[in-house]
């Protein structure tokens, strides 16, 4: 390399400039990759920021599904899934401990249970060899949107107006009109009632995953956990007591362990495996992989689920993520939520103190 002049001093100036340029170019590339030069990029932190803007900040709590209860028990494998995956927890007769969490969506840990007609069930399976399977399931048939960007836009569109405390109906309408993929969810949501019990609900993975069998073949699946408990004939929908789900759970556990069947649903060749807004036809091959037995509950403030990030991309060998774009986004956003609440629990500088007592 040479400068425009043979004069040694000018040449040195050019060489310094080149060095500066190289250093600045590497720094700029790093800043771009990290998102600092792209302030419009929707990052995991911005998604969580938007959720906090909607629900408020409750230090120490999850940014979504903030209200919940820890449950523990085990998964007893039927062995029926052993042909489809090498994951050890599905071996015949295997019993695997689980740490679970029953919750309602939303960022407010004090929300009344009847404020939303959705319940969620998260599970961490602790495999004998130290591997884990984590899953977060919801009692609904499909997800409203299929991409993280649409989810972010939905958060913005449903931001409560400071004047009314409610989302602006025009913005909400415009969002759903611009996102026809939400139709299946909306159709379900319209008639959905808040159940009076966690234990009578069917919880679904909604996102698709792959199972990998011993021959290396992969199988696209979704799963659901279906209660053995009969549907509520006595209580009906949630009303009155804002914490009736916890009371109901305590009452039912007092009568004995609760059971759900873990059913693996296999996709047909043309079923969408990367779109959580599309349900699969109900006639798909379904395998009863075993029974989830829950025999204990604890308040989340002190329970074993408190410090668990139910990141759905944490899977044992024999199970893999699909290309559903929501899965990576869930993983990235949950990590932000987890860091914020553990920072608050740990009283890191600049974090808000967790209010005592936690619930």
């Amino acid at each position: 390399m040479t400068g425009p002049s043979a004069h040694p001093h000018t040449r040195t100036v050019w060489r310094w400039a080149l060095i500066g340029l190289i250093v600045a170019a590497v720094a700029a590339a790093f800043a771009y990759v990290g998102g600092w030069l792209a302030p419009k990029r929707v990052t995991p932190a911005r998604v969580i920021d938007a959720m906090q803007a909607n629900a408020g900040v409750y230090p120490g709590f999850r940014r979504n599904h903030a209200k919940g209860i820890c449950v523990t028990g085990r998964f007893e494998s039927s062995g029926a899934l052993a042909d489809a995956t090498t994951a050890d927890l599905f071996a015949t007769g295997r019993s695997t401990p689980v740490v679970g969490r029953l919750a309602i969506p939303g960022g407010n840990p004090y929300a009344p249970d009847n404020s939303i007609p959705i319940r969620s069930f998260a599970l961490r399976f602790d495999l004998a060899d130290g591997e884990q399977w984590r899953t977060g399931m919801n009692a609904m048939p499909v997800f409203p949107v299929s991409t993280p960007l649409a989810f972010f836009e939905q958060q913005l569109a449903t931001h409560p107006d400071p004047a009314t405390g409610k989302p602006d109906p025009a913005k909400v309408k415009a969002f759903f009109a611009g996102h026809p993929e939400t139709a299946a969810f909306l159709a379900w949501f319209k008639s959905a009632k808040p159940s009076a019990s966690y234990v009578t609900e069917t919880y679904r993975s909604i996102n698709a995953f792959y199972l990998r069998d011993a021959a290396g073949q992969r199988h696209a699946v979704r799963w659901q956990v279906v209660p053995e408990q009969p549907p509520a004939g006595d209580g009906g929908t949630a009303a009155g007591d804002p914490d009736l789900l916890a009371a109901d759970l305590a009452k039912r556990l007092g009568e004995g362990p609760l059971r759900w069947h873990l059913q693996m649903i296999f996709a047909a060749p043309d079923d969408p495996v990367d779109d959580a807004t599309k349900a699969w036809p109900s006639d798909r091959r379904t395998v009863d992989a075993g029974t989830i037995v829950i025999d204990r509950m604890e308040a989340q403030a002190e329970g074993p689920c408190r410090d668990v990030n139910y990141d759905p991309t944490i899977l044992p060998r024999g199970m893999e993520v699909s290309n559903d774009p929501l899965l990576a986004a869930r993983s990235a956003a949950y990590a932000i939520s987890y860091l914020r609440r553990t920072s608050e629990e740990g009283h890191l500088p600049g974090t808000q103190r967790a209010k005592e007592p936690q619930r």
Partner: protein
Amino acid sequence: MSREDTFHPFARVLHWLMAIAILAMLFIGAGMVSTLSTKHTWLLAIHKPLGITIFVLALIRLGFRLTHPAPPLPADLPVWQKLAAHGSHVMLYALMIAMPLIGWGMLSAGDYPVTLGAGIRLPQILPANPALFAWLREAHRYLAWLFFLTFLAHMGAALMHGLIRRDGVLRSMTGGRQLD
């Protein structure tokens, strides 16, 4: 070119391999925490095994460096530059070893399984503890920044030696002829 004024070939191979790996690692780390796309999943899948690879290489390199001293810096180099050179090298070695350990410890404290892919899982090196997780996670972030800034200074200084001073310091790591 005498043996005394260049690094041992093994040290040079390690240096350039690790330079690529560490720079890639810093970019992967910055990228994976700032994206919601499926890149997040596969960048994370590279980040963990690459981090452990860097850790192992760094230990080998430290052992080699302690038994095979670096060529001396030019006698006419200003004292502050000599101090900066030694200080930044100590910093780079410390970060090469500390960053993977912090990442590993952070996953342990967060009660995550420390999986490297291909069925390889490392043991937990710290007890599950949310406050410890948060401290280590933030340390991982800020030390990555420090690592990147130290790298920039290191690269800038190397170019200064090669292009401005042309004193053989850059050549001692590139082998070959002086850049001109």
